[in-house]
């Protein structure tokens, strides 16, 4: 900038000095001065348009002139642009010049002046610049409206990567105007108090509705849309071709779409230089060009892409006939389809006069191209497809191209067809397994299903023809429907020839022949072991007889559910590797090698057995413990099958957890995987399945484990079995203790038997007076009440009221019904002790002893003891009447909620003997008992009135008492 300023200053100085010189040399002004200068603004394009005339030119005079134009900004001294514009000028010509401003013209005032110089050769030198015109001021702001804020330029269109200058113009010098592009604030340079300028570098396309740039202050807002277009690209892959020589179809890749809203989109034009024709394309990616009927062969087509900012072109030159891209053929049919042949026909669209096309026929089977042929075609063609497989689905396709000048193949068109069935071409692969049972041969035949390429259709059944070689006339035919893959035959000891054929709907396959000899062959073949590898089992054998037609190796896994497999081998083979995906690790496979004689008899050569991969045993044998003594026990696992394990069993390890530091003889100390120490005994013979553990300590327990070991490891060290060793003397002790126990029991029985005698001797029973022999004597003498003691001398001092109920068992609790059913036909016992006029012969004798306590009564749960009701006389009548008593009892039952009977806690003396009567239900007295009944001798005991209650509580008893004391029965 500084350099520019210096140059500018120097230029001005030079100009000034030149003018001074000019004014000195030419006193008169030059005649060809620019006049009538008019300056206008194109806001959309931000251009200044100048127009002027040059006067004083004569008619037909044309002068080559140079016009120097100066443009200043803001003030005249601030010259920003100086340009010399050379143009031949004629009479009365209006001259135009435009200048595009980077700063929007509305932002600031511009000034323009112009001067001229005649540079025509007809005018002799020296040549001088004319005087400057006066400055023309261009102030776009004057034409703006009254809005307080403006942003310029409005709706400008630029390309991506451009630098754009914008400005805002405010009507009032405000400082709080902020501007933003989209949502990002932008900061500019203040040109004047009202104008700020922002320079946006390398603007990018954001959206088709343009980039929003706006300025705002608290009360106003103004903005513009800056349309940033992607750069228009040159069309790529421009190419034209014809299908029918009548029209050209041109395609290209347009690249970026430069379409913007409110802006005209990019457009494409085709121009053909030879014919001079132009066509505006309707689409952005392709265009049709109509071929002229004048058989123009060569075309030079130019594709022009154009938008408001840029123009791009691309051209191609080609011969029309070299750009033929035929339409795809049609009417594709297949006819005369047989098992192995078919004929394909199709038609092609004619291509002008060049109707010879090259067509390519491709035959696909199972997704692959099987055959491919080229055919020259005019209009209609056919191709004979041969060497097809029966019953196979094929896809045949055809496409065509120009035969003379190949350009492009047409699209494929195809048809699917399936060939017909044919008789099976191969004999089924048959093998057998022979078992001799009770003088007959059980022959199991196996055959593999024919492959699709050999079956030639769906196999419907297999025919098995059994021919007795010893009796040639005996032939038996079995027809076994598919999809069976074997059958079982029971044959006698004769030799048989078996033919097996597969049949489909068309025919029969060749026969597969097997001969079963009457001689079962070598049975004494020993079984050898082989080790499988990842590749399979490698087998080799020695041929026994030279005259063989082949060998067969068959194998089957130990699992009987799996089927026999076999492999046929050439007669020259003596070894093979048996591979199969079915081989599984840990499964034993048995192999047999047969040689097939020329008579088609199979002779067993060798037997092998092995594992594809041995696995360590996963289970231990189930061991039974027997012969347990104080020093030894026996282990047995005879049910353990060594053949059906996951590897060859080499022997067994017997582990015994040691009780002492030392192991038993024969055992050796080993450390197990869990770091525990065990004693191990090794059994080398896999068939030895018993072991005796000896030298054990009596009266202790041992833990043992039996696990098989193989070349790949031993079985799991899971749970050890515990064995408790019995005591050495236990059998002796048993012999002693049992008799002792017996003796003791005998002694106890004796003691029990003699106890009665002891009782009689040591503490005899108190004699029962009633049972006394004296009584019997008295009974005979007089019929007197059997009373021993005469109590007439007793002085009564108490009243005993005995209310003897039915059976004297007052089971109120839970026996309410029985209570209600009781009959109280007679009043309860009510004896008044002798009064003065009492003269009864047998007064009741009662002893009242207050020394007995409640506890004693509780302990004697004698429900049968008669209840003694101590009630006032006034209430006695009520109670003694059956109804009243029943009611009272019911009320007590209900109110006491526990069945507590009415009673009192006072203690009365009751003879034990009374219970003898009252305890007897059946002897319920119907008459009031005589006094003698009460005078029996009784052992003293305390009886609570509340005894009838099984669980009398204090409260319930009290409530009962209260009830009874109320004096009136409840109704």
């Amino acid at each position, binding site marked *: 900038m500084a350099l520019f300023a210096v140059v500018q200053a120097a230029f001005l100085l030079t100009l000034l000095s030149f003018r001074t010189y000019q004014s000195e040399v030419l006193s008169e002004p030059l005649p060809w001065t620019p006049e009538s200068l008019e300056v206008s603004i194109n806001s959309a394009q931000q251009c200044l348009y100048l127009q002027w005339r040059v006067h004083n030119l004569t008619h037909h005079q044309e002068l080559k002139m140079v016009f120097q134009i100066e443009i200043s900004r803001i003030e005249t001294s601030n010259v920003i642009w100086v340009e010399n514009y050379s143009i031949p000028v004629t009479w009365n010509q209006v001259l135009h010049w435009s200048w595009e401003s980077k700063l929007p013209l509305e932002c600031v005032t511009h000034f323009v002046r112009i001067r001229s110089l005649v540079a025509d050769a007809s005018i002799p030198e020296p040549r001088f610049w004319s005087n400057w015109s006066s400055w023309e001021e261009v102030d776009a702001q004057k034409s703006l409206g009254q809005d307080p804020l403006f942003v310029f330029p409005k709706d400008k269109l630029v390309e991506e990567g451009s630098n754009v200058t914008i400005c805002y113009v405010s009507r009032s010098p405000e400082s709080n105007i902020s501007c933003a592009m989209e949502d990002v604030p932008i900061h500019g340079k203040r040109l004047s108090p009202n104008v700020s300028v922002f320079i946006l570098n390398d603007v990018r396309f954001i959206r088709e509705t343009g980039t929003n740039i706006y300025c705002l202050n608290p*009360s106003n807002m103004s903005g513009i849309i800056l349309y940033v277009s992607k750069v228009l690209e040159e069309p790529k892959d421009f190419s034209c071709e014809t299908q029918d020589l009548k029209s050209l179809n041109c395609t290209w890749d347009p690249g970026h779409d430069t379409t913007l809203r409110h802006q005209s989109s990019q457009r494409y034009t085709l121009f053909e230089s030879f014919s001079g024709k132009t066509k505006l394309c309707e689409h952005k990616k392709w265009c049709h060009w109509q071929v002229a009927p004048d058989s123009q062969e060569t075309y030079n087509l130019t594709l022009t892409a154009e938008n408001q900012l840029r123009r791009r072109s691309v051209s191609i030159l080609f011969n029309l006939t070299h750009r033929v891209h035929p339409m795809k053929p049609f009417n594709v049919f297949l006819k005369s389809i047989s098992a192995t042949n078919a004929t394909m026909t199709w038609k092609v669209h004619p291509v002008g006069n060049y109707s010879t096309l090259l067509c390519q026929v491709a035959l696909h089977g199972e997704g692959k191209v099987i055959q491919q042929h080229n055919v020259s075609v005019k209009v209609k063609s056919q191709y004979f497809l041969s060497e097809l497989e029966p019953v196979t689905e094929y896809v045949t396709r055809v496409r065509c191209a120009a035969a003379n000048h190949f350009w492009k193949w047409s699209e494929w068109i195809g048809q699917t067809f399936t060939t017909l069935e044919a008789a099976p071409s191969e004999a089924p692969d048959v093998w057998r397994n022979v078992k001799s049972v009770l003088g007959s041969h059980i022959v199991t035949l196996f055959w593999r299903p024919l492959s699709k390429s050999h079956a030639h259709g769906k196999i419907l059944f297999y025919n098995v023809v059994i021919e007795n070689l010893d009796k040639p006339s005996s032939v038996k035919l079995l027809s076994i429907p598919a999809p069976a893959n074997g059958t079982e035959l029971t044959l006698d000891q004769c030799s048989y020839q078996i033919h097996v054929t597969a049949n489909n709907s068309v025919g029969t396959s060749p026969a597969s022949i097997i001969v079963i000899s009457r001689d079962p062959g070598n049975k004494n073949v020993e079984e050898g072991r082989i080790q499988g590898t990842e590749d399979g089992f490698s087998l080799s054998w020695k041929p026994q007889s030279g005259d063989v037609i082949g060998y067969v190796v068959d194998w089957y896994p130990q699992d009987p559910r799996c089927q026999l497999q076999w492999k046929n081998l050439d007669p020259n083979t003596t070894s093979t590797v048996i591979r199969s995906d079915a081989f599984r690790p840990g499964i034993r496979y048995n192999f047999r090698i047969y040689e097939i004689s020329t008579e088609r008899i199979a002779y067993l050569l060798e037997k092998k057995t092995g594992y594809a991969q041995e696995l360590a045993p996963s289970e231990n044998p189930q061991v039974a413990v027997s012969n347990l003594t104080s020093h030894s026990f026996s282990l047995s696992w005879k049910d353990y099958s060594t053949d059906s394990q996951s590897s060859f069993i080499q022997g067994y390890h017997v582990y015994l957890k040691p009780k002492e530091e030392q192991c038993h003889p024969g055992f050796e100390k080993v450390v197990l995987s869990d770091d525990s120490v065990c004693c191990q005994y090794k059994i080398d013979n896999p068939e030895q399945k018993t072991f005796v553990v000896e030298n054990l300590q009596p009266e202790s327990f041992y833990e043992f484990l039996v696990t098989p070991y193989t070349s790949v490891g031993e079985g799991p060290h899971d749970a050890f079995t515990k064995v408790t060793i019995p005591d050495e003397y236990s059998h002796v002790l048993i012999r002693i203790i049992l008799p002792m126990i017996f003796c003791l029991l005998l002694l106890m029985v004796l003691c029990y038997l003699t106890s009665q005698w002891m009782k009689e001797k040591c503490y005899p029973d108190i004699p029962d007076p009633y049972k006394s022999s004296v009584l019997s004597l008295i009974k005979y003498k007089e019929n007197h009440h059997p009373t021993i003691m005469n109590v007439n001398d007793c002085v009564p001092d108490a009243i005993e009221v005995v209310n003897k109920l039915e059976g004297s068992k007052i089971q109120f609790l839970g026996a309410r019904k029985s209570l209600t059913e009781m009959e109280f036909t007679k009043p309860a016992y009510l004896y008044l002790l002798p009064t003065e006029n009492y003269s009864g012969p047998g007064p009741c004798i009662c002893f009242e002893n207050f020394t007995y306590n409640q506890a004693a009564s509780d302990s004697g749960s004698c429900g049968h003891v008669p209840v003694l009701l101590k009630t006032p006389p006034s209430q006695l009548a009520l109670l003694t009447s059956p109804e009243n008593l029943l009611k009272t009892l019911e009320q007590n039952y209900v109110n006491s909620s526990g069945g507590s009977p009415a009673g009192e806690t006072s203690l009365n003396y009751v003879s034990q003997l009374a219970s003898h009567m009252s305890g007897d239900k059946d002897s319920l007295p119907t008459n009031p008992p005589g006094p003698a009944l009460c005078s029996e001798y009784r052992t003293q005991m305390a009886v609570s009135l509340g005894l009838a209650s099984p669980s009398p509580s204090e409260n319930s008893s009290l409530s009962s008492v209260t009830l009874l004391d109320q004096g009136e029965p409840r109704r």
Partner: protein
Amino acid sequence: MDFRAGDSWGMLACLCTVLWHLPAVPALNRTGDPGPGPSIQKTYDLTRYLEHQLRSLAGTYLNYLGPPFNEPDFNPPRLGAETLPRATVNLEVWRSLNDKLRLTQNYEAYSHLLCHLRGLNRQAAAAELRRSLAHFCTSVQGLLGSIAGVMAALGYPLPQPLPGTEPTWAPGPAHSDFLQKMDDFWLLKELQTWLWRSAKDFNRLKKKIQPPAAAVTLHLEAHGF
């Protein structure tokens, strides 16, 4: 079950509400002519549906315009957009409007807004946006028809467009493209305000026509873009 005093009052209130609404139950209304009530209800429902539809459409369209138009707090001074009918009105003025005037203003507003919406649709370049706008225009057309139906049911004549004042959409940049975007912004904003106002208008009308059934007042809120 534990019934407290509050629950009892709640049940009582619920019972009263049910009894209060019984006349509104269609099965209990045995009158032959349903009157303008159902059409008012349908119009109200349509305004609510359009509010919902506009919320989605405005989001898409304002993103199409770009910032600052799609910023949630963008509230520019109303530059241009003078021809758009203003939905904002003083509350007292709004309350003082009678039914006929209320419906007439609604009808006129949507007539103008529909015209501008069609112009918006013509300018949109994105196909998906054009489809959404076309669908919305159809819905607004339906609302206009619905308002016309209510007015007919109430016996009010449809407003006749004055000659020369028929709303037209002039294609091409009448002013700068920024102001055009601003117009689009204000169109969507006015539409939203009008739909909000219409919902209130028809709710009020609904209550007036069906006083027993209109016990439930709806609380409407204007949602910003």
